[in-house]
């Protein structure tokens, strides 16, 4: 009985982790290629959430189909912000890109608040549940997890089988060498940034499929922290590391919540979030380059 519960917990954690991991891939990609830390990361997830909300409530589009739309929105936003801000700051002090991405996040939050208001919203996508024996999983969560895995696989294939993907990998290895070989390094940076943002906005859709409530302009903040914990877990520069880091984090978060819930007199939700912060600090102390290898 206990094992069943534990196994059920495990599955829930992995499913959650897949979505978390996918939500972090964009962050790691941008850091890996441009060495820029996107402090406004959570805001882009929030944008994806609102895209889903709007498409579902206004046009009745099923969330799973909102993913490509969100991705496109993300690409556009990414290119826009790259050319007006990020590009000019790449050569300057680190402080500049940190503050710029942070401000971009604030800007997005305020814009969305202006357009949609700051109340908490949600949607209801009823597609039933699936009984896995050890645990019961809403289909929407399963779709979210499968979608995450699919995107991770597609990204892998794109990086390793296409010319564009190889061009970007070469820029990461040695930008001067790549330039000499005819790779348009500037474009590579721009498209990498755009791709990273696109992935992040798309992940917002999957996140809402997992948690279709509490959507508001300021929801991004909590996800930014989680994303950083995951990114640092998996190696800040590796998107695949981020995915596996997400799985680990999903397990840890789920497990710690269950554990804290057993302790009387504490609030498990809050403590779990404190716990993730502690993990972040510990890893930054011992191994900032990440616990998992893999590029």
């Amino acid at each position, binding site marked *: 009985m206990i094992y069943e519960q534990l196994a059920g917990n495990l599955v829930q954690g992995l499913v959650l982790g897949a979505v978390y991991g996918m939500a972090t891939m964009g962050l790691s990609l941008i850091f890996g290629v441009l060495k820029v830390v996107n402090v406004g990361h959570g805001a882009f997830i929030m944008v994806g959430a609102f895209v889903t909300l709007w498409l579902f409530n206004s046009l009745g589009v099923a969330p799973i189909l909102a993913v490509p739309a969100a991705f496109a929105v993300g690409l556009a936003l990414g290119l826009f912000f790259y050319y007006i801000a990020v590009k000019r700051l790449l050569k300057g002090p680190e402080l500049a890109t940190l503050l710029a991405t942070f401000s*971009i996040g604030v*800007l997005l*939050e305020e814009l969305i608040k202006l357009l949609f208001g700051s109340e908490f919203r949600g949607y209801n996508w009823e597609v039933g549940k699936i009984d896995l024996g050890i645990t019961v999983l809403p289909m929407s969560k399963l779709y979210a997890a499968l979608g995450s895995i699919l995107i991770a696989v597609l990204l892998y294939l794109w990086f390793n089988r296409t010319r564009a993907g190889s061009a970007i990998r070469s820029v990461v290895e040695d930008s001067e060498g790549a330039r000499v070989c005819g790779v348009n390094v500037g474009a590579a940076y721009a498209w990498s940034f755009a791709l990273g943002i696109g992935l992040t906005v798309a992940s917002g859709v999957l996140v809402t499929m997992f948690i279709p409530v509490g959507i508001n302009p300021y929801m991004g*903040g909590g996800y930014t*922290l989680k994303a950083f914990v995951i990114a640092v877990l998996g190696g800040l520069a590796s998107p695949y590391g981020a995915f596996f880091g997400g799985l680990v984090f999903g397990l840890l978060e789920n497990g710690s919540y269950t554990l804290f819930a057993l302790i009387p007199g*504490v609030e498990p939700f809050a403590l779990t979030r404190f716990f993730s912060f502690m993990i972040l600090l510990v890893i*930054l102390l011992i191994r900032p380059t990440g616990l998992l290898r893999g590029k």
Partner: protein
Amino acid sequence: MKRDSGKYLPLIPVFAVYLVLFLVGDNISGMWQLMAMLLFYCALGQAFNIFLGMTGYVDFGYVAFMGVGTYGMAVSITGLAHYEGLGFLVIVIGFVMAVLFSTALSLAVGAVALRLRGAYFAIATIGVNEGFRFLIEGARIWNGSEGMIFMAELNKILGRETASALATYWVDIIVLVIAALAATVTLVYMRSKIGYALTALREDEDAAKVMGINVTKFKIIAFVTSASFAGLVGAASWALKTPYVFPPEVFEIHYTVEAIIIVLLGGAGTLLGPLAGGLIYGLSKYYLSIFLPGFQLLIFAPIIILIIVAFPEGVVGMIKKRFRDTALGRYII
């Protein structure tokens, strides 16, 4: 060379501005609230500038220090309320507690985070707000997520009238003093070895190390100083003005955003920068709230992006360049 008196000249414009703000608020009816708000932003900016401006590191978790400062005052008030006859001493102790708490938290965070470079440091601080807020809520420290309300205790300690006068007038004077103190400390640092070390490590941390500068030590000095002032501001502007403390409010990242805007707008690393930034931001927010309430961040976010890209030295930085070689230049630093 008898130049010692010249060292602290740049404080004159700072104190002059604060004096003007006070006089305007005190003598023109209806202006006190606005002046108080401007003073709050100036104090916040001066305090934040000691770290962001002088080291070039960003602490995204800054508001946490204001938060624990608020708790310091709250704890003092609720803890000492039942001792008869302490009166104002409770407030003084409250400020001491505020500084102790914020110093303690900054040492704890700093010990871990300040060993990390630029981006990693920023990442570490992103979670400090969250982390600390959820620790308080999760472990039910100081009443956890219910927060503390101490209006009754404050009235009991000071008497209803005094407490009210404190909240509406004297607190703002205290904030003015804090702002002036922060500016003074900033200048003292700038003129001392601490300032030189901080400039060196901000410009080129590795070269600074090789020149004999213990960069971690100086980062900690700036970090803790900045945090202590944040604690004082929180204790005054939050705990004493509105006698309750509620975790989601005092750990609201919004204030860190405002601090960043103020310092960048005015000119990071300059003495007058936070002053200019505080005034510009405060006035804008005040007047915007009449026509377009809640819009100030929406308007300032793109302005900040513009500043970062095109005018990184801020308003005072640009003025400083213009007047660099003139007599006026000695006052604008």
